[in-house]
């Protein structure tokens, strides 16, 4: 039996074609993204710095990651053409602060607007909008805007640094917001202190937490989905991220990752059906994003859950929440150690002197994001983007399914499979840029 489900309330929309047995159990799932916008073609022919304006518009929720990827790509182009380009550690820290802020607001929106809402709806007890979560995420966006000027769609990172020149006023305002978000996290999300949360090692302790995360875990338990959603158990982190090295992990163990082993497969892309190209590492599917980052950086809670239950829905959901805790603490450290006496921007040679190929990789909310381009005397002659959802939501075959595909196979029905799909934090607009 083949059925088609329109998946709404993600970033954009997707269709999943399910093949199920007579009881409705999912045997196979094909994920289709229907909207193509041609971002790469828009960039080609333009002056290289225009990428700092166009690229963020790939995505309204993770545009800042696209900005930083484009800026780092431009810096690699300088280096690859033999030009020197340096960044102060202040500029690097400020870029991390704003990029990590974007991850934090993304994860909170996913937790409250998608996971809590959808799980409650499936249990027949729909929730009203969580204004407190939107307030917290807007505060985090305000923190970013203190440096980046605005969120969404800032263009404040340029090859050589950042355009802002903050004073202690901005730093103190930002720290005030961090404190406020920490309080929200402890009293509303976790129902315990950040430290206590990170010291938890067992599923039963997570199930007894009183905050909204605990409610979500109990909802998913009642749906019988905590152990479901297991995929290949292969993980990849290609960008630099707090606590992470660039590493791939699979059944053979942990190895240094190399962007040279990344490939794209467009054989599933066909007009009117899907526009999502698969992203592959060493020719196969790897999961990228918060769960991969948690395992690569050996965060204890997630390692314990993974050891006990594999890459299940429980492990995947908890990895995103655990990342909120971990990154919020890191943002505080970056703010407290920011040395304002360093320059924000060290002017590089004119971009018109650059002809080269290069790429930039950052860890975006959903995983490794790659921007790659070729310049001829400062003009973009080719541009290509690989987004995190292309890693996680690609379509394989029945014999070798993609990451989310494999996680959905065996689900009791379409609704439960669709919920598993959402644990990957689906972004359609990014996937089909």
């Amino acid at each position, binding site marked *: 039996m083949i059925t088609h489900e329109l998946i*709404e309330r993600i970033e954009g929309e997707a269709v999943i074609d399910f093949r199920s047995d007579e009881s409705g159990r999912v045997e196979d799932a094909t994920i289709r993204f229907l909207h193509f916008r041609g971002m790469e073609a828009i960039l080609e022919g333009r002056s290289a710095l225009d990428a700092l304006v166009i690229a963020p518009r790939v995505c*309204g929720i993770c*545009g800042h990651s696209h900005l930083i990827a484009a800026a780092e790509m431009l810096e690699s182009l300088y280096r690859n053409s033999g030009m020197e380009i340096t960044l102060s550690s202040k500029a690097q820290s400020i870029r991390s602060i704003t990029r990590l802020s974007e991850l934090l607001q993304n994860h909170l929106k996913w937790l409250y607007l998608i996971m809590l809402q959808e799980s409650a709806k499936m249990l027949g007890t729909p929730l009203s*909008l969580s204004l407190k979560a939107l307030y917290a995420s807007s505060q985090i966006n305000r923190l970013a805007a203190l440096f980046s000027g605005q969120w969404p769609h800032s263009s404040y990172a340029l090859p050589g640094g950042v355009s802002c020149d903050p004073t202690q006023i901005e730093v103190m305002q930002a720290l005030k917001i961090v404190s406020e978000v920490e309080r929200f996290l402890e009293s509303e999300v976790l129902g315990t202190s950040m430290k206590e949360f990170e010291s938890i090692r067992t599923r039963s302790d997570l199930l007894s937490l009183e905050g909204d995360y605990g409610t979500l875990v109990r909802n998913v338990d009642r749906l019988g989905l905590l152990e479901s959603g297991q995929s290949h158990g292969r993980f990849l982190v290609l960008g630099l991220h707090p606590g992470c090295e660039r590493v791939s992990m699979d059944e053979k163990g942990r190895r240094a990752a190399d962007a040279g082993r990344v490939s794209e497969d467009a054989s599933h892309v066909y007009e009117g059906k899907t526009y999502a190209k698969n992203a592959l590492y060493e020719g196969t599917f790897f999961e990228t994003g918060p769960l991969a980052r948690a395992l690569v950086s050996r965060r204890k809670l997630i390692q314990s859950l993974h050891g006990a239950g594999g890459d299940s829905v429980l492990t995947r959901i908890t990895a995103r929440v655990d990342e909120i805790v971990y990154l919020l603490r890191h943002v505080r450290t970056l703010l407290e150690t920011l040395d304002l006496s360093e320059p924000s921007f060290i002017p590089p040679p004119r971009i018109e002197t650059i002809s080269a190929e290069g790429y930039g990789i950052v860890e975006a909310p959903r995983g490794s994001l790659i921007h790659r381009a070729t310049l001829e005397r400062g003009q973009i002659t080719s541009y290509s983007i690989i987004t995190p959802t292309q890693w996680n939501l690609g379509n394989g075959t029945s014999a070798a399914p993609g990451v989310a595909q494999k996680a959905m196979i065996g689900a009791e029905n379409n609704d439960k499979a669709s919920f598993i799909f959402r644990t990957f934090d689906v972004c359609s607009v990014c996937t089909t840029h």
Partner: protein
Amino acid sequence: MPSKPAKLQIIWLQGITCNGNTHSFLNDSALGTLLQDVQFLHHPILPSALTLRELVSKLPKSDILIVEGAYEAGFERAGMRMDKLLSALASKTKHIISMGSCASFGGIFKESSPDTISGILFDKTKASGPLRGMREKVITLSGCPAHPEWLSFVINMIRCGKTIKLDEYRRPKELYAFTVHNGCLRNEYFEWKVDSGHFGTKEGCLFYVQGCQGPFTHGSCNKILWNGVSSKTRAGTPCLGCTEPTFPKTELFSTKTYMSIPAEMPLGVPKRSYLALAGAAKSFHIKRLEERLIDDNA
């Protein structure tokens, strides 16, 4: 007891978009208050009465239709072509808000297919979009993205039955009569023609070298601050002109010059007047404006 007036019914429809206006709107610090007075029949992220599929099958009446994203006739939402979906929803609503520059003029996404993609009322500067027959219903909130306060202002004006004065692109004058230059913290440097040298300094004006379009871009970015705290120019980024039908221009980080003065003049200023004033201002060399504001801060 008089009954409480019914909540305004709003539909939020997306064309070709990045969702940037959706997320900009979620930053509204008074969202809870707004939601006391309005109800979303459909919104792509917020809990709402109708799913996208139900919206497309029912095509309900509404008080306000908000459109985010560029228009292309054959683009589909839940299997329905946009030409059919937009005209059906637009003909059954009282007010239409074009949210962001893609819905307003075509914006960034028009660049990928200039002949088939446009805004809902305007195609760049020409009023040739699919809703040209309903021009009187449309209010334009251009910007990439539009600010959440701009939207809640328009919704509240409609709710209170007040008249909104509009400019030639049907943008509310109270938001777009200003230029982005108004309220910029670098105004003094503009007055005395002190440029910022390079990016990453709080001092200096970005109009002369860095490509700032603030003096000729309509918008209240430095009046109603972004995320309540900042703006592009306050963070040292040039205004990119994102509220105008010409967005995105090219070479966005450098000022086009003609005979070594900016090719595009501040709004309404004749080149001759500008030159006379600039020559005088430049000759004075105000020491305070040529130094760092806080000397131990690089």
